[in-house]
């Protein structure tokens, strides 16, 4: 395990140091450095302190553990691997993510899971332990987004306009979400036993890693959101 002292390094120097080795690394005193572990594969980077924007962009199989909060654009266009955040994450978590998992213990900002995709067995997953901001799963084209709303203290589990433009994938929100408005092109329904089985698969690693009671979480009702059509704009055009 290599230790990197980040206190006096800018992001370029820090990332160069990370690239110098192929071993697992711990970054100490991280303070807003951007682009950490961009495109990285096959190892674990543990971060103490707060990493800057675009943490794990294009991540290609590495594991990142953040012991504090993270900022915007975590896992931008991530392809594979896992990002674990003990605190909150900023806006646009998992933008256009195409594989791997992002597990957030706390809350996520706006536009989490925007334009996530999937192809065959490659299905990305985002789990948000707290609440999510507005535009959750905007343009979602695939993958799974789960929001648990733990310790939400009366806060709404998701902000305004969730699922806008959603045309693929699946979203699970804990609770029955009666007060939340969804766009007309998605179907919201209560989770069935089948759905719960699927949820259990996605949540068991999450609960193990964050030391949470899986059964207790699964005991509450969940709302499932799926798009009605893979071709939301089909009827919109006429050839000219």
């Amino acid at each position, binding site marked *: 395990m290599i230790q990197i002292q980040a206190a006096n390094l800018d992001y370029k120097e820090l990332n160069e140091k990370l690239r110098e080795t192929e071993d697992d690394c711990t970054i100490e005193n991280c303070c807003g450095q951007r682009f950490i572990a*961009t495109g990285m594969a096959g190892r674990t980077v543990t971060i103490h302190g707060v990493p800057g924007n675009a943490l794990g962009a294009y991540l290609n199989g590495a594991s990142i553990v953040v012991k504090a909060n993270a900022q915007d654009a975590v896992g931008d266009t991530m392809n594979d691997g896992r990002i674990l955040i003990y605190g909150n994450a900023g806006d646009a978590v998992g933008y256009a993510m195409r594989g791997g998992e992002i597990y957030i213990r706390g809350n996520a900002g706006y536009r989490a899971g925007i334009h996530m995709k*999937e192809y065959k067995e490659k299905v990305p997953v985002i789990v948000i332990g707290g609440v999510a901001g507005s535009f959750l799963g905007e343009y979602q084209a695939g993958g799974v987004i789960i929001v648990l709303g733990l310790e939400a203290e009366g806060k709404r589990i998701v902000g305004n306009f969730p699922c806008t433009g959603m045309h693929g994938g699946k979203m699970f929100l804990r609770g029955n979400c009666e007060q939340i408005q969804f766009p007309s092109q998605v179907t919201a329904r209560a989770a069935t036993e089948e759905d719960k089985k699927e949820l259990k698969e996605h949540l068991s690693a999450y609960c193990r890693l964050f030391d949470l009671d899986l059964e207790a979480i699964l005991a509450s009702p969940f709302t499932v959101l799926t798009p009605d059509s*893979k071709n939301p704009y089909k009827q919109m055009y006429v*050839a000219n």
Partner: protein
Amino acid sequence: MGVEFIYPEFEVIRNDNRCIACRVCERQCANEVHFFNAERGVMMSDETKCVNCQRCVSLCPTRALKIVKSDCKLRENANWQDDTIKEIYKQANSGAVLLSSMGNPKPFPVYWDKILINASQVTNPSIDPLREPMETRVFLGKKPDKVKRDANGKLLCELPPQLELSLPVMFSAMSYGSISYNAHESLARAATELGIYYNTGEGGLHEDFYCYGKNTIVQVASGRFGVHKEYLEASAAVEIKMGQGAKPGIGGHLPGAKIVGDVSRTRMIPEGSDAISPAPHHDIYSIEDLRQLVFSLKEATEYKKPIIVKVAAVHNIAAIASGIARSGADIIAIDGFRGGTGAAPTRIRDNVGIPIELALAAVDQRLRDEGIRNNVSLVVGGSIRSASDVVKAIALGADACYIATAAVLALGCHLCRTCQSGKCNWGIATQRPDLVKRLNPDIGSERLVNLVKAWQHEIKELMGGMGINSIEALRGNRLMLRGIGLTEKELEILGILHAGE
């Protein structure tokens, strides 16, 4: 029929004396215009479906066919023209947005055709390119502001990453999905042979074409289709697509019907699912945000590749380009409003954006005025139609040109402007295997090489005539240009004098 009927635009004229009922036209027309009437033993046609792609005309062995514009027109009216009225009918029939393809066909001024090139006479002799060396090579990327030397006076030659082109022409972005596998292969092979670059567009890179990586520019658009580490690594440069000349301000949308087989795998979305690229990048709302994407791509490629930012030519393009030049991007690509597309809403294609000539002149001037022209190279596209357009663009300040419509024309496109249908009879804008195989990549790449080589000769001749022997010496040399029939304002923006001055 009835109120919904719109009289066909074209007539199929078959010379019965020549037609031998071989049924080639029937097999060639994916629009199913031609059919054989067994009872009467003759070929017939349903011209309501004809798009005038000229495939049957070109393939008919006895030259029995021609397609003509129908003269069955509505009553003439300069205000309510035939097209305008028919567009109203189509929308009243469907309630839908009009969708078109290829570049803006409206009669807007083409400034290239109002600019004339200089030549040397008597003094400053012209150069014969057949006899004397003529340098068409260019390098795209950030250039240093000053010459640097080490303590011993030795020149420090380390430059930011550059793209080397044998001539200032590249194939611009066309995605796999909007065009076919064979079209991509033709472009990739031609770019490799020519020592230039082709551009994947936003649909990812098919695994068969990674071998052409060093002549490939890969694109990252708002939908991020097919973007991953190996894709970025395979490339010579990465282009961030912010906009496209044919449809500034709106995103891309490849209908699910075209997301089949390899296209779906390359884009990494399920078959049949729409591929939607949102209008903005939802993580970019400022130059600072753009800078973040630029540098995340630089980090991902370890600062070894130039990053291009592509934008559409719009009203404030000079200020926008100035921002991009400060974002850390190495190259700015500007796409004019006549640029082509596989599909765009008609109203946007025909009414949004500005001509590339004016955009280029304004941007080059602005970057010079601000002393940041060396921060970036400028690549322009959006209807570069010939070697003389290239020469004029370079003299106006471009470092290189992007061509796409000209390239697909070389591949056989007949500009029928119905790419959006997915039934391109020339095997270009289609994913139907029976149509794709009509485009042979051996022939396609050869025709592209022919075209670009021919332009290279012409560029050399035009430069030689001016007494200029390198693109370097032509770039931004607006004294080599004169306007014809332009207003003072237009001349002012173009930064050129009128002919005779």
